[in-house]
């Protein structure tokens, strides 16, 4: 599973970070960073939830 964030859409509101802090991190510079682009399968449900909650539909899950 690969996580792709469309940074043109992302507005750094950190909803994804609240769902999965082990993958998404909004830092002090107010930008979103991916801590891993290929999280393990055990995180699939959380990744789907992050994608669902993202108000900008900036997160896609590949594979």
């Amino acid at each position, binding site marked *: 599973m690969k996580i792709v964030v469309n940074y043109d859409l992302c*507005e750094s*509101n*950190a909803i994804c970070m609240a769902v999965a802090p082990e993958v998404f991190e*909004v830092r002090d510079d107010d930008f979103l960073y991916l801590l891993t682009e290929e999280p393990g399968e055990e995180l699939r449900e959380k990744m789907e939830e992050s994608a*669902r909650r993202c*108000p900008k539909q900036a997160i896609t899950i590949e594979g």
Partner: protein
Amino acid sequence: MTVVIAGASLAGLTAAETLRAEGYEGAVIVVDPSTTIPADRPPLSKQVLAGEWPPERAQHRVAARVPELALDLRLGVAATALEAATRSVSLSDGSLISAHGIVLAMGAAPRRLPGDQPAGVHVLRTMDDCLALRNDLDKMPAKVAVIGAGFIGAEVAATCRSRGLEVTLIEVAPLPLGRVLPGELGGFIADLHRAHGVEVILGVGVEGLDSRTGTDGSQHVSGVRLTDGSVVAAEVVVVGIGVVPNTSWLEGSGLRLENGVACDATCSAAPGIVAAGDVASWPNPLYGEVMRVEQWENAIEQGEYAAKRLLAELQGTEMPAPFASIPWFWSDQYDRKIQMAGRPSSSDEIIIPEGSIEEQRFVALFRRGDLCTGVLGVNRPRHVMQVRMKLTESLSWDSAFSVFA
């Protein structure tokens, strides 16, 4: 088995998607008086109104998934009556459905000013509302008056300014956003708008609307009469004075209607009947307070929860724990991104651990005794979310404040 969902917007379609994700294979009948799947609403006061986005872009994610969810989607059809005891739902097309489960997700409708509604007067809830207002803004009116400085009014004022229009924002309360924000922060919002050239009139009510008669005999708004005797001349008036939950069709259903559909702590209104989104009120165990939340993320979170809760009941599996949530929303005004989590009351103490109001970039925590009731950030998304994560565990002040230690 049959589940009926009233409302095909964010909460209703999220509930439908969740039913399928949880493996429910029975019929899902979704009804909505809207003739198209409702647009995602946040862009209607922002990008679409500004003319930056074409209307098609304001579609929420789950709307695009409708074809794969195998729903019996009946657009242009409203639910008109319910008998809670038998779970039978009457529809505006004359049909009567006997359902096993019902999800109430009818949202809310904007309040209007009493009296005649001359041309040029708008409310903002649907895509049609947005396009009608945008069309009037395209004519470059000399002045737009916005009545009500809640979030919708404040965003509309900001968007109109960004289009180069003259704007007067009128609020009967002493400060903007008085219903949600402790005082000092309402002052920040007022100053933000003034700094961008909006005329902000506070603490004065609206007496009525003035209109003029066009050459074809039609009435067009020409101004807003205020309770202090003054008149704000305006060719376009936007009314943002709050919403009323869409529950009138439930009168006599046997459900308790009090600030929306009154639910228990698991979003259940009666056996086999759940509610979610702007229409639902429930006692939030984190706050020990009955709340109804008119916010985008809540519609998703509660829509998911209500669907799972309903399935657990219908299938006799374990019930989920009560719906405990820290509400969260965002609002974009000019280049400021405002985010708030929690439920402060206007009397809570304000503490600013990061940044300052002067910089227009700060975090404000709300304190009530030993509790942190919420957090507001202006261009500080990370901190808002970190505090929210703490609050989800407990409202302890010390724990919330430790984010800044």
